[in-house]
């Protein structure tokens, strides 16, 4: 029972974790991309559609990653090359993604999807208590954990990671040192797009293997909040994602128990929890000031 609950929490947390990890890298490079929700839903519709037509969930996942990255290029071109306002452009990406995905996915509504299988290693998966938890989940769960470790290592233990953070903290100085600020930001934004695409594919291939318009249901925005909550630290994103996964699953269980609480109030809990958590984190001004990438959201036009 306990094992099963933890596994469902992991299923709810994984898409948040992946999308937030991508956005963390983007924001560490000094770019605020509010288009996570849009990229995620594009990934979901792509993953669902490709898996449905080819029968292979993995092809769906790869297509979703590709589409997420390509879709984020739109944002990158506008904000980095044309120096448009990042907040407005990110919103535009979300609105466009929600609209386009609804259009693309119209024919998929109501069709049974392809579900990605879970890992099975003889003997190990059958271990009592921890077997399914450690050795029996879907493959993307393992990817999400490796992604967290990889991003943490990349940002704080490699030269490239240091370069990326320097671009995010002071793009003027980085430019003066000969670092190609715009090129690095393009790569970071595309990485964020790829992650959001993967998170979307997870929703449509693992979490609920079907297509529903607007099925990301604000998860992209919660991922954005998680990055703030984690004060731009990878392992804290993991903790935050699992906390939100627990809230989501907890309210679903409460609904199933039939408590005399309106189901709508329970459904609102993850959103209310996001607000509460944001308030708790941001009231500590010093903590947020120290960790926020100093150039976050600022436009950069190189003086040649």
């Amino acid at each position, binding site marked *: 029972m306990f094992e099963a609950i933890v596994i469902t929490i992991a299923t709810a947390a994984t898409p948040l974790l992946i999308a937030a990890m991508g956005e963390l890298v983007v924001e560490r490079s000094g770019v605020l991309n509010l288009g996570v929700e849009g990229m995620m839903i594009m990934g979901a519709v792509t993953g669902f559609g490709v898996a449905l037509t080819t029968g292979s969930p993995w092809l769906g996942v790869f297509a979703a990653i590709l589409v997420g990255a390509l879709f984020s290029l739109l944002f990158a071109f506008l904000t980095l090359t044309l120096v448009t306002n990042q907040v407005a452009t990110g919103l*535009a990406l979300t609105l466009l993604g*929600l*609209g*386009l995905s609804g259009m693309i996915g119209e024919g998929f509504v109501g069709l049974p999807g392809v579900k990605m299988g879970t890992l099975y290693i003889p003997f190990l998966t059958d271990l009592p208590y921890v077997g399914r938890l450690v050795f029996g989940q879907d493959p993307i769960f393992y990817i999400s954990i490796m992604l967290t470790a990889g991003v943490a290592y990349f940002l704080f233990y490699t030269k490239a990671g240091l370069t990326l953070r320097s671009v995010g903290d002071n793009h003027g100085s980085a430019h003066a040192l000969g670092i190609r600020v715009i090129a690095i930001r393009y790569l970071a934004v595309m990485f964020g797009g790829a992650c959001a695409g993967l998170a979307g594919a997870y929703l449509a291939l693992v979490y609920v293997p079907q297509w529903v318009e607007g099925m990301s249901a604000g998860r992209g*925005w919660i991922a954005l909040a998680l990055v*703030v909550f984690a004060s731009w630290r990878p392992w804290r994103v993991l903790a935050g994602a699992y906390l939100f996964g627990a809230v989501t699953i907890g309210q679903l269980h409460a609904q199933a128990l039939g408590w005399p609480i309106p189901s709508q109030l329970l459904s609102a809990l993850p*959103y209310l929890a996001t*607000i509460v958590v*944001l308030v708790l984190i941001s009231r500590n001004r010093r903590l947020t000031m120290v960790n926020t990438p100093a150039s976050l959201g600022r436009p950069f*036009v190189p003086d040649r």
Partner: protein
Amino acid sequence: MRIELVKRPQHSKLFSALSPFLAFGLTIVAGAVLFALLGKNPATTLYYYFIDPLTEVWSLHELAIKAAPLILIAVGLSVCFLSNNWNIGAEGQFLMGAVAGSMLPVLFPEFQFWIVLPLMLLMGMAGGAAYAAIPAFLKVRFNTNEILTSLMLVYVAQLFLDWLVRGPWRNPAGFNFPETRNFHSYAILPEILPDSGRAHWGFVFALVAALLVWFLLSKTLKGFEVKVLGQSPRAGRFAGFSAGRMVIFAFLVSGALAGLAGISEVSGAIGQLRPSFSPGYGFTAIIVAFLGRLNPLGIVAAGLVLALTYLGGEAAQISVGLSDKVVRAFQGMILFFVLACDTMIHYQIRFVRPQAAGAGETSHV
């Protein structure tokens, strides 16, 4: 080939005026391509989408009905965005305004008197403003990011409305449909010209609000304060303006207007509360605000254009079988083109071939 931006010494007046038109032109071209990809004749589809709805009087009334909430909300958002407050939860304030204003006809259906309607409008504004005050207060008091909190509150408002109309406010004589009782005649916002079509007074409110906010922004000290604090918070502080009070002011204005839009929509166009009565007006209004270049008078024009995309979507669905899902994709594209075209106001765009750039540098030496 590389794209290079050269900052203009002054912002270009020409492109300020031209960029919305350019953006709309590009959207039309992109739309034609999209329609062709969907296997429709681009010319016919564009005609039914953008021209046909404007040829009939009843249809113009429908245009005004759809433009009213868009303009009201977007005018409020212009105050927010100009002062650098990113209220993207207008959809929630729209819904809460509708809920607050509907209290009278739903809970006190026997109270039928001419005062009901004015009270409803006031309560709608108060409801929207109160809901917008939450992210504003959190921003001022706890430094919480208003983008995320205002958006989260949209989902909460949708669920709250859903609970109301399925639970305590459900029409007792409504066969369990998730909707409230129909408003009585004193709670209905009247039509402007009842003989020719359905357009209600909400459209007039929108025009008045646009004029008032235009006056506020361009002719008063408060308007100057909005712009100074938006463009340079530091300069605003030196001038003695309070950034915190501006946050509250901007959110209250936009919340009240969104709330007015909500109650006007419910009491003018629908006549009862339903779980999802808004086709995303609060989000589309963000596009309207930017297409109108954050100028209330420009927003009136932009609101009519975006209302046309809703209406044209319906028309094209009926006449050429175009999916109604195209509408939102279309609206998203408009915002992209607007933002891209706005770049030319502040920058000259040069296309540089790598070799040519090298040659240019040597000639300087």
